[in-house]
C-alpha cells in the first residue's frame, strides 16, 4: 500500500510537482527575481551524496556541505525540514527501546529531486545525507556504510582535545572524508 502511494507520484502528478519544485527552489537574492535562479543538478555523475550535514543535539548545524555550492541555501532548507522527521523518528523509537535502537534512521523523506537519509548517534548528533533521487544504483547498505564512515570520522573529531563540542567542525580530516563521499562537481 505504501509503495503504491509512492510510485503513484511520478505517474500521476508530474505537472504539479515540477511547479511546486520551482517554488521550493526560491533562493536567489531578491524576492521577486528568484525564479531565474533555479539550478538543476547534472544527473549524469551521481554516484554519491550531494549534501552531507552534521547537526548538533540542539538541532543547529555543526557542518554542512553540498556539491553545487552556488545553491547551498536550498540544501539548508532541505536538511532543516528533514529534522522534523528525524525528531519524530527518535521520539518514536525512544519510547520503544532506548538501548537497542538502531542508529540508522533510513529514508527520511523523498523530495522531487532528492532522497534524504538520516542517522543519529547515541549522543543525539544527527547526520543527514542527501542523494539525488535519480540515483538508483545506491543501495541501502551503501548509505549505511557512508554513515558509519561519517560517524567514525566524527568520533575522531570529538577526540581532538582542541575541538570544543558544539562548535562548527573545521577538521581537515573530516572534510576530506566528506569530500570523498560527495559527487565531484563537474
Amino acid at each position, binding site marked *: *500500500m505504501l509503495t503504491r*502511494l509512492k510510485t*503513484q507520484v511520478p505517474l500521476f502528478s508530474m505537472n504539479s510537482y515540477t511547479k511546486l519544485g520551482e517554488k521550493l527552489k526560491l533562493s536567489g537574492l531578491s*524576492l*521577486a527575481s528568484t*525564479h531565474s535562479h533555479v539550478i538543476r543538478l547534472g544527473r549524469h555523475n551521481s554516484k554519491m551524496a550531494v549534501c552531507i550535514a552534521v547537526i548538533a543535539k540542539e538541532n543547529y548545524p555543526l557542518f554542512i556541505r553540498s556539491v553545487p555550492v552556488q545553491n547551498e*541555501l536550498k540544501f539548508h532548507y532541505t536538511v532543516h*525540514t528533514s529534522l522534523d522527521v528525524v525528531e519524530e523518528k527518535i521520539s518514536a523509537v525512544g519510547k520503544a527501546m532506548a538501548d537497542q535502537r538502531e542508529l540508522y534512521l533510513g529514508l527520511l*523523506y523523498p523530495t522531487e529531486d532528492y532522497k534524504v537519509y538520516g542517522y543519529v548517534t547515541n549522543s543525539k548528533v544527527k547526520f543527514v545525507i542527501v542523494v539525488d533521487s535519480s540515483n538508483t544504483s545506491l543501495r541501502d547498505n551503501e548509505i549505511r556504510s557512508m554513515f558509519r564512515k561519517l560517524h567514525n570520522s566524527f568520533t575522531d573529531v570529538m577526540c581532538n582535545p582542541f575541538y570544543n563540542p558544539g562548535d562548527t567542525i573545521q577538521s581537515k580530516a573530516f572534510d576530506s572524508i566528506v569530500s570523498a563521499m560527495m559527487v565531484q562537481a563537474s
Partner: protein
Amino acid sequence: MSIPDYMQCAEDHQTVLVVVQPVGIVPEDEFFRIYKRITSVAQVSIRDSQRNLYIRYRHHYLPENNEWGDFQTHRKVVGLISVTTCGSAKEWPQTSDRFHCQKDVFGATLYDSRLLVFGLQGEIAEQQRTDVAFYPSYDDCPDVEKRVEDFVESIFIVLESKRLDRATDKSGDKIPLLCVPFEKKDFVGLDTDSRHYKKCCQGRMRKHVGDLCLQAGMLQDALVHYHMAVELLRSVNDFLWLGAALEGLCSASVIFHYPGGTAGKASGREPSLARGQGQAADTGKRHRPGAQEVLIDPGALTANGISADTSSEIGRAKNCLGPEDIIEKYKESISYYGKYKNAGVIELEACVKAVRVLAIQKRVMEASEFLQNAVYINLGQLSEEEKIQRYSILSELYHLIGFHRKSAFFKRVAAMQCVAPTIPEPGWRACYKLLLETLPGYSLCLDPKDFSKGSHRGWAAVQVRLLHELVYASRRMGNPGLSVRHLSFLLQTMLDLLSDQEKKEVTQSLENYTSKCPGGMEVLTLPDGLKLPPVPLSKLPIVRSVKLLDLPVSLRPHKQKGLLENNLSSKSPFIYSPIIMHTRGEERTKKIEFRWVQGDVCEVQLMVYNPMPFELRVEHMGLLTSGVEFEALPAALSLPAESGLYPVTLVGVPRTAGNININGYHTSVFGVTSDCLLDGLPSVRTSGCVVEVIPSLPRLQLSTSLPRSAHPLRPSKEELSSSVSVQLFNGETQQLTITLENIGSEDLETLEVTSKTCNTKEKLFGEFLSWDLEEAVSQLPLKPGQSVTLTVNVKVRLDFSGGENLLQDLNDDGISVTGLPISSPLRQVLKPRAETKALGSESSKTDYNHVKTLEAVMTFKYSGGAGKVEGYYRHLSLGVHVDVEPSVFFTRVSTLPATRTRQCHLLLDVFNSTEHELMVSANNNQDLVLHPSECQRPAAGSSRGEPSLYRSMSLVGMNTSHYVLSI
C-alpha cells in the same frame, strides 16, 4: 470540481450542506451578523428520535461542486437560506423573483429553502408563510435561530424520507445508476442489462444510502451499507466509487471513535462541536451517547418505526473500523481516487481528512506520508490564489502534526507565492504576514534579548535569508520603519555570521532606509497586534568595559571625619561583623568608593571596538543614567575599521544630588538610535555603576608667584594639584604669594591651611613655611569669580655640618689639620660615606653634592555651599620644593694654643659661596661680615667639652672668613 475545500474533515460526511446567501443589496456586515446567528444552529436534535442532524453552512458554494452531490451527499446543497433587504411593498415582487432565481441555481438538489426579508413592514409582512420570514430590521429579529431550527427539521424530514425511499427500494425496478459528472459520457451505449452494470448500480446506490444514513444520524446503519457497497463495488472493479465507499466507511468510523471531531481547535466553525472537543480531547475514545445507545439496544431503530434494510448477518460490533483500519482504508481509498485524473480534488480532500485523523491518533510519520502525497496531487492549472491557499493549508497541516520546520517551509513558499512575478498586484502585505508566521519554525524570535544569551546557535544561513526577505517585503509594503527594525535585528544578531561584503551591503541599505525613516527605540506594533521590540545596536561598536572615573584630585570631595564615623555606625548595630553586607556577584549594583559632585563634569570611560570592516561613525554617544538628573554631553566618534580596543570617555554633569546609576549608553549609528542597557550586555566588564553624587561644592584655582615645579615631589603618597620649586641658600627667606580664585559657582565659606614637611631626615631649624591666614579669612565668604591672596614665607635653616666631604676635599689640597685629635675620627667615619654617596645618581655631579632638598606640602581645605552642610570639603595641595645650598664653607680648621692650658683657639677658615654679603654669628655673638668670595679667619673660643661649631649665622654674601674658636 476544481477547488478543494481544505477545511474538510471526516465528520463533515455526516453534515447536510446549507447555503446562506444574500439576495439583492445587503450590507456585508449585516449579512455576516445574520450569517453568524444562523451558523450557531449547527446541530439540531430531532424530536421523537435519538438522532442529531449536523449542518454545515456555506455562504459561497460553486454549483459545479454541487454536481458531485450524488457521489458524496455531504457535497450536495440541500438547503438554501437567502437574506434580503426589502424597503417597500413595491420591491417585494422583484425580491421574490430574485429568490426564486437563486433557488434554481441549486434547484435540483434542494430539499427546502427559506427567505429572510429585512426591512419590510405592512400587509405583505403579515402573511404567514413558511418559506419566508419578515423582520422589521436587522436588529429586530429575535427568532432567527428558531426559524433556522424549524428549517433544519423540515430538511430532516425530506432527508429521512429519501433515505427510506432508497433503502427500502427492493422492488424489481431498475436501480438508477448514480454517476459523477465526468463519468456521464463513459456510460453512453453501455449494456444496461448486464450483470456487471446491475451490480455497479447496486453498489453505488448502497453507498449512497450509506451516505444518507450517516447524514440522518444512523451511524450503524451507514456502516453496514458501506460494507455492503464495498463488497459489491470491489467485485466489479468500480474503483472511484469503491474509493468513495471506503472513505465513507472511514468517515463513519472516525465519527464513532472521535466524537470530539478532527477539525482541530483552530477552525471553530461549529461552536457545539468545538465545545465537545474540549471535553473529548483527552478522553479519546469516549463514545457518542447516541451511538452507544444504538449499540446497547440494537432494536431501538426498528422500534422507532424506521425499518432499515440492515443485513443482520454482519455483526454490528465488527462494522466499525478500528483506528488502524481507518488509516489502511484511507490509504486504499486514496489510491483508488488516484487512478482518476478528474478526482484530484476528492483525493486531496481525502488526504487532508486522513491527516487530521492521524494527527489525533498522533501517528505523525504516517500523516507526513499522506501530506507528502497531497503535495504531489495535480489539480490542473491552479490560480495563484489557489496555490497560496494550498501551500498555506499544507503548512497548517504540518503544524498540526508537529512538523514545525516543514510548516514554516511551506508557509514561506506561500509567502513567496503571494508576490510571484506572475501576479499583477503582488500582495506584499500578505507575504509579510506569512513570513512573520514562519519565524518560530526557523527558531527565530524578533526580540534581540533572546540572542544576547551566549553565542548564536541556529540555522544561520536560513535565518539570514528569512530576515532579508522580511526586510524586502516590509519595504515593498511601504513601511520603511519595519525594514529598519528588521535590518537592525539582522545586524545585531547575525553580525558574526555575515561576510565583510554582506556587512557592507546591509549597512548601506540600512542607511538608505534610515534616511527616510530613522530607527528608534519605540516598540513597533503591527496591525495584527504583533509587537516588534526595539533593537539596540550594542555591537556597533562593541563595548568591552565601562569604568566610572573619579574626579581629578583637586576636585575630589572629602567627608569630615566625625560625620563619616556616624554614618558607619548607623549601618549595622555591630561594631564589627565578619559577615560581608553586600552580596557577591551583584557587581553592577555595587557602589563605588569615590563620589561625584553635583555640577561638576563627571567622566565614564568605555573601551570600545569596531567589528566592521570599514570606518564606523558613531554619533550622539552619551550616557544613560537614572536616579539623578543628569545632563549627558554626547560625543561623536569615528572608529577605524576593525579597530582594537579604543578608549572613549563619555562625560556629563549631574544636576542634582543622590545616587546615580549608570544604566547604559546611547548611540546613533547609521541613522539608528539605540539605548544599550548594560543589564542586557553580559559581556561588558564593569566595576560598578552606582556612585553617590553629593551636593555642589565651590572650586578653587590656585596660582603662585613662583614658577611651577618641573619635577614632582619624590615620595608623595598623595597626589598634588600643583607644585612650585625654588632654590635658596641656607638661611635665606623667600616670600611666596598664593592666589586662590573661586572658579566654581558656590561661595567659598571656609578655608584652612596646613603644611607638612616631607623628608624629615634633615634637621630643620625654625619654621620652614609660615603664613598669616587672618587676612585671607577676613575676606570670606568668597563669591564666585573672586580671589584671595596668601603670603607664605619660605625660610630654610638647615644643618650643613654633615657635609664634611667638602671639607675633606679641601683638606686633601694640603691644608693640614694634623695635630687635631678631634678631626681624625671624623675623617675615618666620613670617608666610607663619601664613597656610598658617589654611587647615588644625584651626587654624580660633585657640584650638587652639597645641595640639600627640602620639601613640604601645603594643604588648603575649603568648603562651602550645600556640600558644606552635608559635611564635605575639598582640598588643594601645593607642593613646595626647595633646593638649599650652603652659604658658607669652613675650609680649614686649625688650633692655636690659648693662654690657659684648659683652653685653645680654634681657627676656622669660612668661605662665602654666595653672591651676597652675609653675616655669620657664633654663640659668643661675635658677628662677622663676610663679603662675597672673601675668606676671613675668625677665632672662636671653644670649650673642651662640646664644640659648637655652628650656631646661628645670618649669611649674606660669599667670601671666606677665618673664624677662631677658643676651646
